[in-house]
């Protein structure tokens, strides 16, 4: 399976993502610079990694939305193939309306990093089929804009459509509505999440619960 990792100026977790997909999972992974985004069509899945694209200017993810790469990413998502945005990648997908909601500054107004206990709310998505519903998992996080917001009406719609994938189990929810940590689009092929699965894929990293997210995508595509 061929994974593309879409890199913007200011992306920071692209190499971690490459390591997870290629080094640990053993699949083909290519870093694609945003000006080469027309090549995305040749791949089976796209990751939009974390970091601070375009310096987080205006709003995190906002300027990436205005780049030419977004047209190709949008076409890729519309083709039904899997897209995953992690951290800043989630902010980019939310800004581009590829997943619902928006990410505000953390309630405490500070950058926060650590590990979170999460609940897998939906284990039937193509990103979580290797987990069980209600399972508690541990993933690292590192963000200043991790406070998920969505209005009440959209939230209800998301609940009906089972679009909430991960919630924070502990108090470290950064102010997020309904303690939401990860969501999918209505079609189910685009995932955005603030916790960082690529930093939890092998024992030496301290946590391994992110590994099965990659496995789930692999299982779906093959």
């Amino acid at each position, binding site marked *: 399976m061929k994974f593309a990792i879409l890199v913007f100026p200011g992306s920071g977790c692209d190499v971690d993502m490459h390591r997870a997909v290629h080094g640990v999972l053993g699949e083909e992974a290519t870093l694609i610079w945003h000006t080469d985004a027309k090549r995305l069509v040749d791949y089976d899945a796209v990751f939009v990694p974390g970091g601070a694209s375009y310096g987080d200017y*205006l*709003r995190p993810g*906002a300027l990436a*939305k*205005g780049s030419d790469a977004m047209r190709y990413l949008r076409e890729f998502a519309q083709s039904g193939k899997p897209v995953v945005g992690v951290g800043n990648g989630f902010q980019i997908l*939310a*800004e581009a309306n590829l997943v*619902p*909601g*928006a990410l*505000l*500054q953390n*309630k*405490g*107004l500070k950058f926060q990093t650590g590990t979170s206990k999460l609940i897998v709310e939906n284990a039937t998505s193509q990103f979580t089929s290797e987990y069980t519903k209600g399972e508690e998992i541990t993933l690292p996080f590192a963000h200043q804009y991790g406070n998920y*917001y*969505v*209005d*009440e009406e959209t939230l209800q719609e998301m609940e009906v459509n089972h679009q909430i994938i991960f919630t924070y189990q502990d108090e470290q929810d950064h*102010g997020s509505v309904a303690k939401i940590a990860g969501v999918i689009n209505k079609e189910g092929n685009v995932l955005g999440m603030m916790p960082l699965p690529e930093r939890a894929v092998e024992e030496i990293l301290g946590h391994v619960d992110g590994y099965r997210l990659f496995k789930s995508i692999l299982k779906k595509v093959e």
Partner: protein
Amino acid sequence: MTKVNVYVTLRESVVDPQGTAAQKALQNMGYEEVKSVRIGKLVELELDGTTTDIETRVDEMCKELLVNRVIEDYRFEIEEA
């Protein structure tokens, strides 16, 4: 040249911890009358004089980039410079 000021504010339903912190600071400084502070931003645009349909164009700019309407509201003022 035309100048446009775009005022971007957080939607009413969105909590503004920065505003709340500033409100507390003002009250600490003796301004007890301050019941609420909401912090937004001002975007100043300069458009070249040939632009027509300024209102429509700026509204599109707001919707497509300058404002995230999930969390923000906006209004703008156009002034001839």
